[in-house]
């Protein structure tokens, strides 16, 4: 259960188009669905377009094309060499993704009905703040989320959002101002006239912004919405409407959040219109290797040429090359590529989460044992009893190893937490990631993952 609650906290970082369904503009979920990759369901990262005119994250489609050759969307044949990067779309999507948390606040909170608004405001605002703050570090670290133990979570929060924990004072003020407000009335942010909310929302605001002399508000109580009661003198149209809410003292956005100023350029249009030299595609991509025609020493030469580790079994070498090949080539499709050093860190991180790299027993099923090899499970003549008999002792052994290593891990975690405080313990986990692969292999005997026994169960 503990891992699952940690999981829930991490999940705060995960946004989904369906969240717009409860906003003032549910159609945004459609826009957002289109801005997300069909494969990973995240916002496009380095989008590329296929020969059949479908768009995916470069990394997703390249990974997919290692084992398949059909478009995931339309099933027509796709050649990796035909993938073209889409510079404009990447800028559009990153721009939108940066604006999204703000847009979400503007469109979601307004919708709350006054009866629950006090409690809802308090419940929802910190969540959104966390989500926004967590977003940044996660974006920079590929799209893998670390499942940290519960105890580490507060630290994670504290590094990513130093000083931006929701200020209780601000919340209290906000609460008070809302309690005083007549729940059914609000003032127009443009002309300042007070009127019923549904009227304001449905009719008045549009007319007011268009400069029409407004019709008299009719008394109505249906579907009230919270709006700031503050009178404004500015008549700057729709932009001032947003700015007012953004900067008002009772704004749900905490002052510390590194907010975007609506007038400040985010740099996305500059990149598209001015830095045209960065839009070319003549970068050298890594070649796809035909492993069957390569001897292991030749393969190691290729790995060395790309300066990636050459330890491990043949299967591991092949997996590692392919992963680096995908990381490297998709990085070239990005408008804002990272350094090779970062790519190598990501490669290492990927190995840590891949079961084929977990322990020597990980290859148990992929190599040797021709009579009862891993593949035979899928054949119709497969005998479950024989399999169980052959592997029973190993299953037990693995389960025990896994239990033991879980205990060891838990103890280690506790020790780390006791030794260090706050940010330091988080730092230590990130150092872990940067460890060279050799040392990982050296202590891999200890860390038999709990994955194996489960996977075995599945195969019986």
């Amino acid at each position, binding site marked *: *259960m503990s891992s699952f609650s940690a999981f829930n906290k991490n999940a705060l970082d995960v946004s989904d188009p369906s969240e717009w369904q409860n906003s003032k503009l549910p159609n945004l979920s459609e826009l957002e669905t289109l801005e997300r990759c069909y494969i*990973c369901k*995240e916002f496009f990262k380095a989008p590329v377009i296929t020969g059949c005119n479908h768009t995916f994250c470069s990394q997703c489609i390249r990974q997919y094309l290692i084992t398949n050759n059909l478009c995931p969307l339309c099933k027509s044949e796709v050649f990796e060499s035909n993938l073209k990067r889409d510079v404009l779309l990447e800028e559009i999507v990153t721009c939108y993704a940066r604006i999204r948390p703000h847009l979400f606040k503007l469109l979601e909170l307004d919708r709350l009905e006054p009866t629950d608004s006090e409690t809802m405001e308090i419940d929802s605002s910190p969540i959104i703040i966390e989500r926004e703050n967590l977003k940044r570090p996660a974006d920079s670290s590929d799209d893998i989320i*670390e499942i940290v133990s519960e105890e580490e979570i507060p630290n994670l929060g504290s590094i990513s959002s130093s000083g931006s924990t929701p200020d209780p004072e601000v919340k209290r003020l906000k609460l008070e101002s809302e309690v005083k407000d007549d729940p059914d009335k609000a003032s127009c942010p443009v002309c300042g006239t007070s009127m019923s909310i549904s009227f304001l929302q449905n009719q008045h605001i549009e007319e007011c912004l268009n400069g029409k002399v407004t019709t008299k508000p009719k008394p109505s109580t249906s579907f009230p919405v919270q709006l700031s009661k503050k009178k404004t003198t500015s008549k700057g149209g729709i932009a001032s409407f947003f700015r007012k809410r953004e900067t008002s003292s009772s704004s749900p956005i905490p002052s510390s959040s590194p907010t975007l100023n609506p007038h400040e350029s985010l740099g996305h249009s500059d990149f598209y219109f001015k830095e045209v030299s960065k839009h070319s595609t003549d970068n050298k991509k890594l070649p796809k290797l035909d492993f069957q025609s390569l001897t292991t020493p030749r393969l190691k030469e290729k790995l060395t040429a790309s300066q990636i580790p050459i330890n491990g079994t043949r299967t591991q070498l092949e997996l590692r090359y392919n992963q680096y090949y995908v990381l490297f080539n998709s990085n070239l499709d990005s408008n804002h590529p990272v350094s090779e050093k970062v790519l190598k860190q990501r490669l290492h991180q990927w190995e840590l*989460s891949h079961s084929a790299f977990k322990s020597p027993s990980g290859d148990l099923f992929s190599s040797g044992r021709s009579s009862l090899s891993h593949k035979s499970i899928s054949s119709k003549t497969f005998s479950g009893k024989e399999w169980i008999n052959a592997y029973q002792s190993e299953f037990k052994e693995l389960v025990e190893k896994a239990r033991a290593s879980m205990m060891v891990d838990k103890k280690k975690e506790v020790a780390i937490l006791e030794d260090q405080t706050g940010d330091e313990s988080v730092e230590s986990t990130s150092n872990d*990631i940067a460890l060279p692969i050799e040392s990982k292999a050296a202590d891999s005997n200890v860390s038999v993952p*709990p994955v194996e026994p489960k996977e075995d169960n*599945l195969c019986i």
Partner: protein
Amino acid sequence: MATLPKRIIKETERLVSDPVPGITASPSDDNLRYFEVTIDGPSLSPYANGKFQLELYLPDEYPMCAPKVRFLTKIYHPNIDKLGRICLDVLKDNWSPALQIRTILLSIQALLGAPNPDDPLANDVAQEWKQDEQKAISVAKEWTEKYAVSKD
């Protein structure tokens, strides 16, 4: 150090917070790629009233390859063999990364409602199914009663 792609987190979150009617899926405590699943037999099928246990594992390559799913509860079905393995196109050749855990489990539920003896996995069952469908259906009901209906 467990790392989990965002997509899996998102899918799990939705499965738990917004479950499909008649289907439950919850991740294992010690391995978030391993799910314990139950599927209710469709009401107009011989599997009605049954609660079937399955296990689902997301391989490292997911979503580039299909999840591995297997029945744990014994079931009499031409496309499910005695080890619980399932013959379903979307779990094999027709897998697409656009599919997800949710859609796969729905497909399996649909397979319970529409057995296909012409593309069998359990040859003996398929044979009996083709020869005498009424009898096969009654056996399926019997098995459901025996293995899949909880008797508290």
